[in-house]
């Protein structure tokens, strides 16, 4: 395995960092809590990178990781990591338009149990950005897919702690739109891509939480010393950095296996999501502990990333669910 980034990948990462730091400050994430339309301007900038959805997953993940670092709101993830790949799997032309950044879209697939597999539930749950995208791809048993505008759906916002990713319950009633069949394996692969991309995003969020804790530990003085000189803080941060680093490596590896259609891709995706979810939620708890009281305030930005971490942990399969899938592959294969 060679994890060396190509020059182009290194440049992509640098560009993403610079762009997102500028275009998605925490002020925007906060404004988005009250007014989701503030994400529209951000999408206009990020749409330039939608073509990543047509390339290797490894490259898309490099970009998505940086969106996790800033807790970016808006339709980028839903459009590139879900909608474009599901439509491509269904052979729908709108995949190209999504990959060109010309349209936005999302996918309605999971039922009330939150598992992203075709199901009979009349209400599809955990659908990101369902009210503000151009198209919703509804996946039904068969599997088949129907692509409809949000206006014809009844949508209900699921109120969660994470306002940066808005999830909806979607009911598909009396819709005329014809459904087209989609290959089950191709659908599974598209969902796997989304899971790995979300793992990469979580790594970004974990890294942000970690960086904030590290920075604070270096500057906060108590007992006449920076608290980062105390072993209790040092060992907590050392352990946390291990969790973040191994999640990062696991997510990159998973993207490589998906790109190569490697036998290990299924396991690697479960490993990546579990490792990233564990790292991000641990980073959330450790970071606020290192910050102490100041991290508990509304004014401090920390909670924006804690929220994102817990929202992402529960979406596209919790750590426990991914462990169960792994166990099935280990024990029952």
């Amino acid at each position: 395995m060679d994890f060396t980034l190509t020059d182009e990948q290194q440049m992509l990462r640098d560009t993403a960092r610079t762009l997102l730091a500028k275009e998605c400050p925490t002020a925007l994430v906060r404004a988005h809590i009250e007014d989701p339309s503030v994400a529209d301007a951000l999408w206009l900038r990020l749409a330039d990178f939608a073509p990543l959805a047509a390339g290797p997953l490894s490259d898309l993940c490099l970009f998505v990781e940086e969106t996790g670092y800033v807790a970016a709101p808006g339709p980028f993830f839903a459009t590139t990591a879900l909608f474009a790949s599901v439509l491509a799997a269904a052979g729908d032309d709108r995949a190209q338009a999504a990959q060109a950044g010309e349209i936005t879209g999302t996918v309605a697939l999971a039922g009330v149990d939150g598992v992203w597999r075709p199901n009979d539930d009349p209400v599809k749950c955990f659908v990101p950005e369902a009210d503000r995208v151009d198209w919703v791809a509804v996946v039904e048993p068969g599997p088949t897919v129907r692509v409809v505008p949000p206006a014809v759906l009844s949508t209900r916002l699921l109120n969660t702690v994470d306002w940066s990713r808005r999830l909806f319950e979607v009911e598909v009633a009396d819709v005329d739109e014809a459904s087209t069949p989609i290959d089950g394996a191709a659908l599974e692969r598209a969902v796997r891509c989304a899971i790995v991309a979300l793992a990469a995003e979580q790594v970004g969020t974990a890294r942000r939480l970690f960086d904030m804790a590290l920075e604070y530990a270096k500057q906060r003085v108590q007992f006449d010393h920076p608290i980062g000189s105390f072993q209790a803080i040092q060992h907590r941060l050392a352990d946390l950095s291990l969790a973040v680093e191994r999640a990062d490596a696991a997510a990159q590896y998973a993207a490589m296996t998906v790109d190569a259609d490697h036998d290990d891709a299924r396991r690697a995706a479960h490993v990546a999501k579990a490792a990233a979810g564990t790292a991000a939620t641990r980073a959330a708890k450790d970071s606020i502990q290192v910050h102490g009281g100041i991290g508990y305030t509304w004014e401090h930005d920390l909670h924006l990333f804690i929220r994102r971490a817990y929202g992402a942990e529960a979406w596209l399969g919790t750590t426990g669910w991914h462990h169960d899938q792994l166990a099935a592959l280990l024990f029952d294969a």
Partner: protein
Amino acid sequence: MRLSFGPEVEAFRDELGTFLDEHAPAEALAGYDFADSGAETRVDLIPQWARDWQATLFDHGWMIPGYPRELGGRDATPVQTLVYLEEMARRRIPRSLHFPGYAIVAPSLLEFGDDAQQALVAPAIRGDTVWCIGMSEPNAGSDLAGLQTRAELDGDRFVVNGQKVWTSYAMVAEKCFVYVRTNPNVPKHRGISLLIVDMDTPGIDVRPLRHISGAANFAEVFFTDVEVPAANVVGEVNDGWRITQGSLAHERAGLWVEGVCRLESTVQSLVDVAHRQGMDHDSGVRRQLAAFYEQAASLRALGYKGFASFAQGSSAPEHSYLKMATSELGKAAYELGMQLQGPYAPARDSERGEENGRWANMFFMSFANTIAGGSSEIQRNIIAQRVLGLPRA
């Protein structure tokens, strides 16, 4: 980023595989289990087959592939060396049953030794000379720089007095790397020197020390007025601390591949134990094992990722991460292996429990892994201070 290193490197792997298929003795093929659970009943610390195998590897350029021919290698690239370690670990074939000579003495002498000392390198790697390392002392463990064994220069010789402990292979070694205090009047890191001492020098008393599983493969070594030629100092007098830093790095550098492979095979064995014990449908056990698998798999990825930055010339903090993580996880995995046996967890019985008490034995032996070679706490200090840049207290 890519999954394989390319055809030339895979050709190198094939060449190694052909060599191993032809030459590896049966004992080496069973080597890992031998080294793990057989140690307590092993009479001969370095059996003849292991000596012959190490010499064979050296003579064919497969002992340390990155070294030149005359040092038992073949000028392999770092990537080829990684593939070598990966393949040896995957096949569970040990290179040697005594690591100090090839892993610590050889690289240290290559970097710091004079011409006469360079001549000791090849026999150390081939295993013709068995070495031990006199570092730890009763009052100098994690605080290695606090070592107190004294060496006083008297004409053309040093006179050494003091005690070392946890000295692996001291009872069979011919030579020892002894870290001594040559100047007690300066800050502790600046008064340490490294001496090469022949173990048959009068005044050396080796007392084997049984460890927790009952075996003895390390010893206490007492030095009483031991005379060592002044020419046996390695590098400059009072500059020995620099060498300790180097030799510990050498000790850690290649260990992660082996650590990860061992962890992965332990997880697979645990799945088998769970099946045999009828615990394979227990959701708690299933999740625990999936979590172990997740950690082993992600640590492997982290190792390769660290290697990528190492190969590009950056320092690779991953060694500390992997040393700490694989040793801690291994301990937890062996404990789970015991727990899966319910009331027979502590059994070491041929009629009851798994594999003659293998899991309990491995668990006990694994206590050493989070202590030796820089304890987990020392690794966390290294990560916090050298990787994360946190200030020292």
